[in-house]
Structure formats: C-alpha cells, structure tokens
C-alpha cells in the first residue's frame, strides 16, 4: 500500500493506493504554523480502518521548502565562490560572496590554485553563519577545488552544513549552481527539523516504510537524499498534479493537461506518455537555479476567478474576491457560470442566475451569459497553451539537424483535473478542435501523484580522452579513463554503472534508466585528432509505480 500526501496552500490531502485502486482519501485544512499537524491529521484520517504496517511507501509533496523561501525563514549562509576570469558575479547572487582565487578551466584543468589563507580570512567574516555554500566555475568538470575548499573550511566550520555547487548538478552554469548551492544551504536545517518530525510521527504510527519527498520535476527522492539536497523539494505542487494525471489518464498521443483550481490553471504538455521538462532550472526569488522542473505555465483563471466588465470588456480573473455567489460569495465568478449553464450541480442555482443577470443584463438569457463567460475563460486558457507551445518551439538548438528537422507540436487531447475542470475543459477542447478527458479522481490528483511518482536520480559523466580522465560531478569523482580506446558506448556504460551505484546507495530500486543528453566531439590539434570529449547525462527514468484504474470510498468525483 502506497501512502501519498500533498500539502497544498489551502488543503492537505492524503491517499492510500492499493493494487491500482485508491482505497482511501482524506482532506484537511493546511495548518501553516506547523505543517506537521495537518500532515499527521491527513495521514490518520486516511489510515482509519487500515493496518499502518501494511504501508510500503510514504511519499510527500510538501511546501516546507517553498514556504521557508517565500516567508524568508532562511538560515544565514556564508557563500564562497571560485569564479576565475569572466563575468563579475558578486552582485548577481542572493548574498554578497567571499571571492576565492583559483580557477578550473572549461576542460576541468586546474589553472590556478586556491589559497588556504583566503578561506581562513573568509571564515573570519562569516563566523556567525549557520551554514555554508561553496561554488566554483567549471566545478562540474572537476569538483576538486570545491572539495579542497570545503575540506579547508570544515576545519573551522565544525559540524555546520556545507553545500557544494557540483553536488547539486553536473550541468554547466556556474551562476545557477551557485544560487542552487546557496538556497540548499539556506533551507538545510529547516528541512532537517521537518524530516526529523515526519520520521518521528510516522514511527509513532508504526509506519516503518521508506519515506520519499517529491521534487519539482515530479520524481521523488528518498528522505536521506532529500536531507542532502533539500532545495530539490521546492515547488512540488504542480509536479504532483502532473504525475497524478500520468497515473489516472496517461495520454498516448501529444496532449495538454490542465489543472484548474480556484484561482489558477496550470498547463503541462505531453509527448510519448511523459510530460515535457523545462529547458532551464527554476528561478527562486528571481535567482535562476539549476533545479529541474516540468515545462509548465500558470494562467490566472479558476473557478473562483472574478467576472466583471471593465471598459466594455468582459474580464475574468486573475483576482478572486471570495467564493462563487452560488456558494455565498458576493461577486459573480466563473463557477457561477458553470452552475447557471448546468455543467455542474452544486450551490444555489438561483444565486448563480443572479450572478449571470448582473453580468448579462436583461438582453441575454442566463445560459447565454454563462456560455459567454465560459467561452472567454476558455479563450484565455487556449492563448496560454499556445504561448507555452511557442515558447518551447523557440528554444534554441545547437545542431543543424535539430534546427532543420523540427516538426510542430500538435496536441490531440486535453486532459482536465482539479475542481473547475469539468466546467472549462470541454470548452477549451472545443476551441482547439480536439477531444478531452476528465479522469475520475481529479480532486485529490496531487496526493495521488505523490503516492505513485517513481524516484529519480541523475549522473553526468564527462570523459576527456586527450587528458585521459573522466568526471562524475554528482558523485565527486574524477578518475583516469580506464583504457586507451574509450568510446561513447563505454561512457554510457560507465554512466549507467555510476547511476545504478548511486541509486543503490540511496535505496532506489531502478526499473529503467534513460539518456537525457549526450555530446561527442573530436579534439583536433594541428590537423590531428588527439582524443575525444564525450558527455552523457543519464537518469533513472521518471514515471509512476502503478496506474490507477478505480477507487473505493465516498465523495469520489
């Protein structure tokens, strides 16, 4: 039995999944002061009548990290950077960094050494920091100087946490790695406390199953991994929803999924049964990071969106001024239109019709006004879908073949989940001239997504046969290339080996791995080929542990 928990802005949901069935679900208000309270309450509710010892996995999508950042509850972090020559970075970071000398170049070669005394001097200024982050340019190509600096800092920093840029990702982008390392250090102790509390609470309930935390890209990570890279647990809500869609209605054709809630619609795109991933990491408080996420777009339209006239134009959202009039609110909303149009059946229909009269006046019938509102809302959503597709299409590529052989993304299906999906999704699909699906279970889709999302993990192997070395940044490894003839298949093999090893260490069972990207270049010097640079990034394939084909229990919609 899988237990999935989603801590949302308003409600916290828990579901128990057993044999392709959601057998329990619970909803409780989110307690913002102490997230543990609502988590335990949701867990307790969902486990009524079940044996807690039968839970085999607990997975949590939580706002703990997001809240810490949004509410500014960040630890004081001492940031040390090794930038070498290049762009001035000091004014671009969340805190002013201590700059260390030393430089590793684009091939991962140490060009200038770091100086111990600078690290001591930096520490003198950063003595009172709670945690530290170290980031070096091209440390993903050779983590050596970050590790050296960390070892030196450790002597003074004692037990305090030190985050390294290279351990967060093996990808290029010093600026993003530095921001990521900073935020990782800043939320580190807050996350440890939370993790301790969750573990204790589960133990009390005799749940000894392994605990997983959802990431922004919809993969999960074992709690032990989350404790070292807590920043990955940011902005997980939309990812939980998308993976919920995957298990409820995994689309075989190119598709769009919409999670339409009270105030917003979250849009995701699907190809070959998987959601598309964002080309770049997410930004935290305006600082770009290397934290991977899904390719999503949010538009300010939901069931509670305010409907009104402004300068002879019908405006919908993004404001929300309370619930629908049919539910006791004061102003007309999109939900009132659903009710007046007869698309959903809840609330006070008379009040919904009053709302339509306020908007449509005497010349239009209630139904005409309602359909007009729904049409306007659907138009805005379709525009946002098209913008998301164009943004993806406009993303640069660096090979001629990729530029010339592009085919347009044409969705064939719209999938809708969330409270307001029923009222809007058919209108969106109709405008796009394609089919739609509204899978059952959409109301607790986030908790379902968390329950079933597979753990993921990645490694980046980069071999430079001219230098005779390879690196695996995420593992802090730099070693000699094992033999003279070392080709791309060997690099992939090596990458797979490291990935499986790393996954095993974290307790992740690997079903399948996949290649995220690879590059191969011949090194030519003086008209002679002297070696190859080969990079490959592999990951444990994301997906869901099971598909959901049914449910038991009441209140399912």
């Amino acid at each position, binding site marked *: 039995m899988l237990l999935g928990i989603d801590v949302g802005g308003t409600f916290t949901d828990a579901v128990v999944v057993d044999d392709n069935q959601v057998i329990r679900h619970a909803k409780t208000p989110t307690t913002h002061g102490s997230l543990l309270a609502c988590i335990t309450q949701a867990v307790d509710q969902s486990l009524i009548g079940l044996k807690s010892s039968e839970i085999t996995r607990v997975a949590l999508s939580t706002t703990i990290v997001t809240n810490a950042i949004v509410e500014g509850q960040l630890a004081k972090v001492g940031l040390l950077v090794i*930038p*070498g*020559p*290049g*762009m*001035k*970075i000091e004014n*671009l970071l969340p805190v002013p960094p201590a700059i260390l000398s030393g*430089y590793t*170049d*684009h*091939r991962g070669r140490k*060009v*200038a050494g770091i100086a111990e005394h600078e690290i001591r001097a930096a520490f003198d200024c950063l003595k009172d920091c709670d945690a530290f982050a170290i980031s070096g*340019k*091209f440390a993903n190509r050779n983590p050596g100087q970050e590790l050296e600096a960390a070892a030196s800092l450790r002597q003074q920093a004692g037990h305090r946490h030190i985050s390294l840029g290279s351990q967060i990702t093996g990808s*290029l*982008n*010093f*600026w*993003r790695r530095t921001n990521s390392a900073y935020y990782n250090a800043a939320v580190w102790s807050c996350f440890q406390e939370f993790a301790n509390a969750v573990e204790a609470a589960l133990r009390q309930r005799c749940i000894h199953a392994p605990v997983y935390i959802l990431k922004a890209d919809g993969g999960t990570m074992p709690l032990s991994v989350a404790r070292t890279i807590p920043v990955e647990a940011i902005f997980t809500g939309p990812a939980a929803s998308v993976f919920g869609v995957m298990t409820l209605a995994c689309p075989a054709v190119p598709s769009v999924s919409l999670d339409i809630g009270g105030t917003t619609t979250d849009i995701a795109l699907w190809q070959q049964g998987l959601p598309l991933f964002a080309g*770049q990491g997410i930004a935290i408080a305006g600082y*770009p990071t290397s934290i991977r996420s899904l390719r999503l777009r949010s538009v300010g339209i939901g069931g509670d969106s305010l409907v009104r006239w402004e300068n002879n134009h019908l405006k919908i959202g993004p404001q929300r001024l309370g619930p629908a009039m049919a539910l006791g609110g004061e102003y007309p909303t999109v939900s009132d239109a659903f009710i007046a149009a007869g698309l959903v059946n809840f609330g006070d229909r008379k009040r919904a019709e009053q709302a339509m009269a306020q908007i449509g006046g005497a010349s239009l019938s209630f139904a005409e006004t309602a359909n007009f509102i729904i049409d306007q809302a659907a138009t805005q959503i379709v525009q946002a879908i098209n913008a998301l597709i164009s943004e993806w299409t*406009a*993303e*640069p*590529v*660096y*090979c*001629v*073949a990729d*530029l*010339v052989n592009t085919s347009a993304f044409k969705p064939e299906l719209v999938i809708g989940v969330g409270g307001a999906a029923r009222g809007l999704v058919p209108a969106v699909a109709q405008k796009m001239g394609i089919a739609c699906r509204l899978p059952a279970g959409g109301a607790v889709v986030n908790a379902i997504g968390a329950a079933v999302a597979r753990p993921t993990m990645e490694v980046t192997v980069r071999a430079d046969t001219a230098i005779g070395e390879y690196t695996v940044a995420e593992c802090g490894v730099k070693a000699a290339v094992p033999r003279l003839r070392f080709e791309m298949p060997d690099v992939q093999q090596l990458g797979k080996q490291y990935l499986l090893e790393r996954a095993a260490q974290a307790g992740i069972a690997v079903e399948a791995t996949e290649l995220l990207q690879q*590059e191969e*270049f*011949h*090194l*030519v010097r*003086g*008209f*002679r*080929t002297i070696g190859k*640079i080969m990079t490959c990034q592999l990951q444990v394939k994301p997906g869901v542990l099971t598909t959901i084909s049914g449910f038991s229990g009441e209140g399912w919609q």
Partner: protein
Amino acid sequence: MKKQLGLVFFPAFDWAISPTHPERQERLLYTRDQIVEEGLLDLPQIQEYKPRLAEYADVNRVHIGVPAISPLITEAHLVSAGGAITAVEAVMKQEVKRAFALVRPPGHHAMRMVHGTRGFCTINIEAIMVEYLRKNYGIRRVAIVDTDVHHGDGTQDIFYHDPDTLFISFHQDGRTLYPGTGFMEEMGSPNAFCTTLNIPLPPGTGDEGLHAVLDGLILPALADFKPEVIINSAGQDNHYSDPLANMAITAQGYAKLAEQLKADIAVLEGGYSIEQALPYVNVGIVLAMAGLSYAEVVEPDIQRCPGQSAATTAYIQEMIQKWQGIWRARHDLSRQAKLAAGDFWHRNRSIYYDDSGIYDDQRERVRMCPHCVGYHIIESQAEHPGQGLVSAFAAILPRFACPQCRKDGQDAVHAAKRQGRYQHYFLQDKEQDFLEKL
C-alpha cells in the same frame, strides 16, 4: 522593456568542412561551455534567439552562384545566414538594442560570384543580412567594420561599387597573410570611392595599435559617413593565441573595441584559437555589447601575449596619418578617379578558392554613369579541379539604376548570350530584387 543584447548563438555542432578542418564541430564548443557556464544566457539584459533559415531569395539578392547557389551550399550555410537575419530582425523590431550573431560557418571571404568555398566561406552572411535590411526596412546607408585578422575580401568585393556601404577592414598585412589583399590602395571603384577603407596592420599589432586605429580612423570615418546601421564582422583571429595569424590582441582589446564601436549588429567571422581565445573573447564581446562590465574577462595565459614593439607603434601612427590625409581629400580624389576611368572602369583579377581548389580569372566592368552608380558586368573563367573550365557572364543592375543603365545592362547579357562564349549567363536586378539565369 527592450533588452540590451539579442544573442543568436548557433555553434553548428554537427557541421564541418572536413573532420580536421579549422571549421569543424569543435570550433565553438569551448565558447558554448564558457557562455553557458558564466550564465550569460540567463542575464536579464540578454535574450537568446534561435536562428531562422535564410531563403534562397535572400542569398540570390547578393550572390551569383555558378551554375547555381544551391549545389554549392549546405543547410548550415542557410542557418548561419538566417542567424544574421534573425539578429537584424531583433534589432529592427526593437526587441533588443543590439544583436550578436555568434554563428558559423563564416562568410566574409565569399564574393558576389560564387564558384565554391574560399577562406572557409561560401556565402557572405553579413552581405545577405545587409541586403535583407535594405529590402525589408528601407535602410540605405550601412557601415561594415571587419575586425577579422584576414582581409574581408568577399565583403569588399560585394560592396566595392556601392557608395551607400562603408566597408572598413583592419587586418594583418596582406603581404604576410591570406588572402593577400586589403591594401590601402583598394578604395572602391570611382563611383564608390573611399567607401572602402583598408588598414593593413603589421604582424605583432596589439591592443594599443588596434585602439589607435579605432580612435584615429575608424570612429571619425563612421562619424563622417553617418550610417543608419553599423555592422561588425567580428572575427576573433587577431588574438595573440590564434594559430593561423600573428597578431597580439587580447580579449580586453576586443571587448573594448565592441564597447566603443557600438555596432548595432555583430556577426562572428573567423577565430581559430578555439580554447585559448574564443571562450574569453566571446564572453568579453557579449558583456560589452550588453553594457556590462568585462573587466574580469582575462585569458588565463595572458602572460603569453607579446607586447607591441616601438617600430610597430610608429608604423601604425604613420599609416593613420596617411589615411587621415586621404580621408580629408576623398571628395577631390573621387572626382579625379572618375575622370581617369573614362566611360567604363574595369579590372582583371585572379581569385583563388583555397578550399575548393578553383582558380577564377575575372574581368569586371562598371559603367561610369553620371546619373547612377552604373551597371556592372562580371566575366568569369574558372578552372575547377576535375571539371575543367566553368565560365559565366553576369550583368548586375544596381539599386537606383537609371533607365539607360538598366537597358544597357540587360542588353549586354543578352548580347553575350547570343555570342555564346560562356556557359552560364545571369542577370542580377537589385532594383527589382531577382536573379535570373538566362
């Protein structure tokens, strides 16, 4: 809000002239590494653009491919020319203040008539961009400043008879480097006199010499010419570490040049020190064009850069003074050149295609028309390896051609076709914007 810099980055990681050629997949690998690693593409001042594909019509607006352009080029050429067009569009649509097309393959050795590839170039991406700009945005006066170490002989050839294009090239002296041209005496044909400025620099010229030329000659000439658009053919092989040349410019020198030149659009040309120079020079140029500090962009091996000798400094000073004198007297000199030419200006040239092994014997004529810049005839006899002689006759009708020149140019190509001494006949009508093969 308008961003400072649009960056069209296209390293063509799957394209090479041949596996070990300087123009190979690896060329911009380390530049990509550095640009991405610095985080330049994430800066709020910079917008990255995906290049579009140029159309054959864009290419034929400039070039006369023999027997046609399509068999001579690959898709990569259309992408790099398209990248330059994408850059110019971003600037003209006011999405960005300036743009840099950091693309390959390069183009500045490609001349109007194209038989093959020379100096790694097949089609001239700046020239295609300039003519696109004129066609689509009604721009007339354009300045191109070529800062590649090799003389931009292709760009010079294309605009040699065009008084609306100021072409300035500084480069390592043609007596010491490919393509062996670009001397001060090459100043444009009489109707476009002194809109071609060549500044051949001695080997060993460093940042000091480069900036003396910029301050003493290039910037004042630009101020006098008053171009609507300034383009930088931003080759990077004047760098001290370049394996194909002998100059001593640094990343700082190039970045400061970009900062002071204030080009609307820069387009990458050569530069083959792919590890020691390109990552730093490109980051320097990108930062300078984006209006950001490039003070810390210094090559790790900067101590290898030789200083500029006193003799070189003196030589450059003298040349600047000589050029200043010519520039001041340019209107008089132009009148004299027109008088000396008579009814037709003409020249014979031998053009070598080093990458294709083609020798072209070219004869050019331009009518010295008092009403327009005059129609232009190219007669070409090219010896292709394994293929023998490939010959062509082309008449080019310039923009704003007078009715007489339009008629005479058309008559000339039809008459030549009747005589039948050539294999291919072309009419390039720049006014009506077409290239016709007769």
